[in-house]
C-alpha cells in the first residue's frame, strides 16, 4: 500500500542491443513530470542486469522499450528471471514497436501492459496510477 508521500518508483530500461531511445526518453520525461520517481538505465542492458536493478531499487514499475523486434526473446528471459528471483508486486510494462499479434503472448508471459508506438503518453501515466495504488 502506498501512502500519499511515497512516490511510485519506476525502472525504465532499454534491453537488448537496440539503440533507438527517442521514445524511451520521451516516456521517461512524461513519467517524471507525472510525479513518478524514474530511473533510466540507458542502452543495452541485459535481462539479468534489469531484473537485478529492479529488485535492488525496489521499484513498483518496470518499463521496457524495445524497437528492434526482439521483444519476445527478451521478455521470455525476464519471465524466467522473475520466476527464479521473485517478482513481488512489480508492474511490468513493455512499449515500442510491438505488433498486435504479439500482445497475447506478452500477456501470457506476465506483461501487465503493452504500449505500442502511437500510445498517448497520458494513457501510460493513467495505467500506472490505476494499477499501482
Amino acid at each position, binding site marked *: 500500500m502506498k501512502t500519499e508521500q511515497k512516490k511510485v518508483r519506476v525502472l525504465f530500461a532499454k534491453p537488448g*542491443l537496440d*539503440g533507438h531511445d527517442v521514445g524511451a526518453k520521451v516516456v521517461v*520525461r512524461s513519467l517524471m513530470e507525472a510525479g513518478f520517481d524514474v530511473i*533510466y538505465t540507458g542502452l*543495452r542492458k541485459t535481462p539479468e542486469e534489469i531484473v537485478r536493478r529492479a529488485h535492488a531499487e525496489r521499484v513498483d514499475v518496470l518499463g521496457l522499450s524495445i524497437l528492434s523486434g526482439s521483444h*519476445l526473446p527478451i521478455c521470455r528471459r525476464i519471465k524466467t528471471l522473475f520466476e527464479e528471483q521473485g517478482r513481488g508486486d512489480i508492474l511490468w510494462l513493455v512499449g515500442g514497436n510491438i505488433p498486435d*499479434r504479439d500482445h497475447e503472448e506478452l500477456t501470457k508471459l506476465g506483461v501487465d501492459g503493452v504500449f505500442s508506438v502511437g500510445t498517448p503518453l497520458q494513457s501510460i501515466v493513467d495505467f500506472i496510477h490505476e494499477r499501482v495504488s
Partner: protein
Amino acid sequence: MKPREETGAQAVRNESGLEIKPVYTATDVESSGGGGGIGAPGEFPFTRGIHKDMYRKRPWTMRQYAGFGRPEETNERFRYLVAHGQTGLNVAFDLPTQVGLDSDDPAAQGEVGRVGMAVDTLRDFEIAFAGIDLNEITVSLTINGSAAILMAMYFAMAAKRGYAIGQLRGTAQNDILKEFIGRGTWIFPVEPSIKLVGDTILYCAEKAPLYSPVSVCGYHIRESGADPVQEMAYAFCIAKAYIDHVLGRGLHIDDFASRLSFNFDIHGNLFEQVAKFRAGRRLWAKIVKDQYHPQDPRSMWLRMIAGGGGGGLTIEQPENNIVRSAYYALISALSGTQTMALCCYDEAYTIPSERAARIALRTMQILIEEMGLCDTVDPLAGSYYVETLTNQMEQRICAVMSELEAQGGIVSAIAAGRIQDVVSRQAFERQRKLESGEIRKVGVNCYRMDAEERPPVEFHPFKEEVCAEQIERLERIRSERDNAKVAGALQTVRADAKAGRNVMPSIIAAVEAYATVGELTQCLVEEYGRYEEPTRF
C-alpha cells in the same frame, strides 16, 4: 475533428522558429542578407548545387536501405533491387554486427539477422556481394561503432575479387559522434572513437582516394528531436571535429575533404527543408573556404544523401506514408541531393516487404522519368520565399554553431550528454504538441477514422533458424582458418591500438585471415575501453 483554424492574422512560424510572411517580394530577399549571393550551379558558394549540370548529366543515385537475415537473404534482396533499377546499395547490418558482437555471443541472442544482415567474418561479405559489380553499383555501409572492421572487410572482399582499391567507390556511414546523440551503436569512449574515424580517413586518403570514409549524419540527430537548423549546425560541428582531428595528424584539407559526405533528414515543411539544404550547401562551402583554405573547389562541396524521413511517417494509416515519402523525394530532388533513400511505408511495422521497397524505388523513378525533376538545375532558385528563407536559415545555422563553439565545441557537449539532453527535451515537447493537436499530423491527431482498419502490412518473416545457420558457419570458419595466423594478426591490431598507430592496415590483415567482428572489437576494447552513457535526466 477540429477544422484547421484560419491563420490569416496570427503569426505562422516554421519548425526552426522563423516567422513566415503571407507574401514575399524582392525586398525580403534583399533585406534578409544574401551572404554573397547564390552564384551559379557548380560554382562557389554552391547554393544552387555542387555540379553545373546536376541531374541533366546523371540523376541522383537511388540507394534504398536493405539487409536482413544471413548474407544469402540479403544478397537476394540486393539483386532484386538492382534488377528493378536501383543504382546503389545501402547495407543494413544486424545489431550484433553494429555493436561488435559475434553471432554466437550470448548478448546477441535473439538479435542475429533481425534488423539487418548478420556479419561475422569476411566470408559473409563475399556472399552478400556475390554477383554485384562493385564498379557499376556503389555500396554504402550503414555502420558506425564497428565501421573500421566492416570497411576493412569491404576492402578485403573487393581486393579478393580483383578490384583495385585505389579505384573503388562507395561510402561508409562511420559517423560515430552522432551515435552518441541518436541511434546508439557506440562501442568505445568518445576520444578513441574519433581516433578510429581518423584512422579510416587517413587510410582512405592514402589507399582508397575515391572512397567516402565518412557520411556525417544530421539525419539521426533530427530524428532524435533536433529542429532543421540544429540538424545542420550539429552535423557541421561534427564534420569539423573530424576535419580538425585528421589535420592534426598531418593531412591537408584537399587530401580528403572532397570525399566527406553528409546524410540529412527530410520531413516537415517543404520550403523549410529546401532552404535548409541550399543554406547548408552555401554555409559549408564558406566554412571550409574560410577556415581550412582548400585549393581544390571539391573540398568545399556539400555532397549529400537526403531522404528517409522516418520521423515524419506514421504507424497510423500507413498507406499515407507512400504519399509522404513521395513528397520527401520531391523535396530531396528540388534540393539537389546526390543520393536518395526513402523510408518504405511499412517501416513502422516491419522490415520492408519487396513490394514496399519497390514502391519506394518507383517513387524516385517517377520523379526522374515523368515529372521533369532532372531537366533543370535548382528549379526553386529566385523564388522570393525560398531565397529569403535560405538566407535566414543560413544565419540561424551559423548562430547555433557559434553558440556551441563558444561553449567549448560539440565533442565536449556530446561527452557530457548536453546535446542529448537538448534534443530529447525537444522530442518530448514535440510529442506533447502532437498529442495536444498543436502540431497537426494527418491520421494521428486529425482525420482519424472511427474504427481504424488493420493496415495492409505484410510482416517480414523472421526466421529463427537463420541464426543457427549463421552460428554454424562461424564455428566452421573458426575451425578451418589458420588460427595461429589470426592470433598473430589480432596481436598486431592490439599493438597498433596501444601505440596509437593507424589500425586500418592491421585490421585489414586480420579480416583477411578471417578474424571475426567480435574478436577485433574485443582487441580494440582492451586498449580503448568502453563508452559509459550518461543517463541522468
